[in-house]
């Protein structure tokens, strides 16, 4: 069969051309523009400035803080989602009644807009009459009442919580698919050998669930580095710069018109995410076992 004739390359052209023009070209252009003094007022006349943008960024304490915050956010949210997602999946894989209803509820946050969720959680974390403070008062914990998003010490933790709240159900769906793929033979054999529930979990469930862990960890780490909407809506990087992350800093530089600096930051974010994706994927794949 002549595949050349029957599977023509031109079938791929609409997708490939669209993707190259509107995705790859900006990536390549961004690489070059990072080394210029490009500004919104001189859109067509950028001048080459070497590594000046990068040197300035690494001397800028706000950029370093945004970088630290982004890494912290990615790490904490990924840990939270890996654990809570697994917990939800194990609950639904147990003998609990009403599984279909619970699954529907647990997954719901994954489909809601981050803008809607962000504004909703502003009501939860509000100082005066906010939901969380209301609950603390009702429990008699007045001394814990706090301006959660207005306090630099707690603002970041609130945004981390929102991300975990949104994505744990999504991770649950991936774990559940993995759990359903594990043959019951393994558990029956283990039961005959007199294994305890904990032993079964450690020696059968966890290792055979490694592919699901790979996906959940990689996806959420990448997603964590890209975080934008929830920060933009809930704190816009504040109070001060305490919740500033790379994407919001890129946006604020863009709004000021400093396109060269903004591109330089985008390039760094791009490089970081690419390296982390490759490293994580290789490291985690090694730990997967054949079923």
């Amino acid at each position, binding site marked *: 069969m002549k595949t050349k004739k029957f599977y023509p390359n031109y079938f791929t052209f609409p997708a490939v051309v669209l993707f190259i023009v509107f995705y790859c070209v900006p990536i390549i252009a961004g690489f070059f523009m990072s080394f210029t003094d490009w500004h919104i007022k001189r859109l067509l006349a950028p001048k080459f400035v070497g590594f000046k943008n990068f040197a300035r960024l690494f001397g800028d304490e706000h950029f370093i803080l945004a970088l630290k915050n982004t890494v912290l956010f990615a790490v904490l949210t990924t840990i939270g989602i890996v654990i809570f997602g697994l917990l*939800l999946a194990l609950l639904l894989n147990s003998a609990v009644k009403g599984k279909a209803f619970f699954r529907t509820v647990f997954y719901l946050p994954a489909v809601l807009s981050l803008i809607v969720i962000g504004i909703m959680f502003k009501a939860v974390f509000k100082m005066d009459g906010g939901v969380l403070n209301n609950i603390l008062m009702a429990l008699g914990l007045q001394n814990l009442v706090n301006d959660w998003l207005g306090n630099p010490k707690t603002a970041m933790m609130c945004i981390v919580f929102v991300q975990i*709240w949104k994505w744990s159900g999504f991770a649950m769906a991936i774990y559940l698919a993995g759990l359903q793929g594990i043959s019951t033979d393994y558990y029956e054999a283990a039961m005959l050998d007199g294994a305890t529930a904990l032993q079964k979990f450690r020696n059968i469930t966890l290792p055979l669930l490694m592919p699901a862990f790979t996906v959940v960890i990689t996806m959420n780490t990448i997603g964590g580095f890209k975080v934008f909407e929830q920060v933009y809506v809930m704190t816009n990087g504040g109070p001060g710069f305490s919740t500033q992350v790379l994407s919001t800093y890129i946006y604020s530089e863009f709004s000021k018109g400093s396109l060269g600096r903004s591109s330089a930051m985008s390039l760094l974010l791009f490089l970081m995410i690419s390296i982390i994706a490759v490293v994580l994927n290789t490291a985690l794949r090694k730990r997967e076992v054949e079923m």
Partner: protein
Amino acid sequence: MKLGMREKRIASSAILTIITIAACLIILIPLMIVVLGSFKDSAQAQKFALALPAEWHIDNYSHVLVKGKIGQAFRNSMFITVSVTAIVVIAGSLSAFVTSRKQTRYTQFVYYLFLIGMVAPIQIVTTYALLQFLKLSGTFIGVILVETALQMPWTIFTMSGFIKNVPRELDEAAFIDGATPVRTFFSVIFPLLKPIVATVIVTTAMGAWNEFMVPLYFFNSSSKWTMPLTVYNFFGQYSSDWNYVFADLVLTALPITILYLLCQKYVVAGATAGAVKG
């Protein structure tokens, strides 16, 4: 007292049920406060309590529809979502069909090209300049094309995974009967892709409806704003009138929530389809 097997099992299942309900409440309570609050008056909504509205203010919704310019935003969001989804499904399935049917250097190149897109974040500043250069800045077409490019990689990987399991004999039989590639694809293959097309449609539609960053960067005129942009802006103006803010949130989230409840099977399949491939 020593517990027997039966009591132990009942106790442990009760504990599991309690934990499950607690997790459920953590998700539902904030959502219920929003929905209930959207029917309250301003003073009662500000208390953020789970109580039923003292008086049901359905007029909050008509107020938001007028003041929040929801009608226009709804049409804009709808137009962008439908366009992005249509282009992604057709261009994506065509490309996935060819790349999953033959192994050449070109298809290898296409594979790696889209693999980059699965990981790399969008370079929004240069995309902005590109749209300026193409005279597409601030237009619907510009935003639609950028969002299409953004959604393409995932679609192609998901579709390829599915097409690989469609027997090759079907297209070969059509070719022997003298059908052209275009005809073969649209009348033989595409109808068989229904489940995965449904998955791609709901996943893409949700992504496009909820997309915030692209319209935020590229639309300066409020007449083109989408639902999430409008609700963000509305919140900035009316942040003390939580009843209106909540009604606006409900209106923004409602279409997606309905789509989710109706097509849950396909939505969850979308989450795991991308995952299996990795």
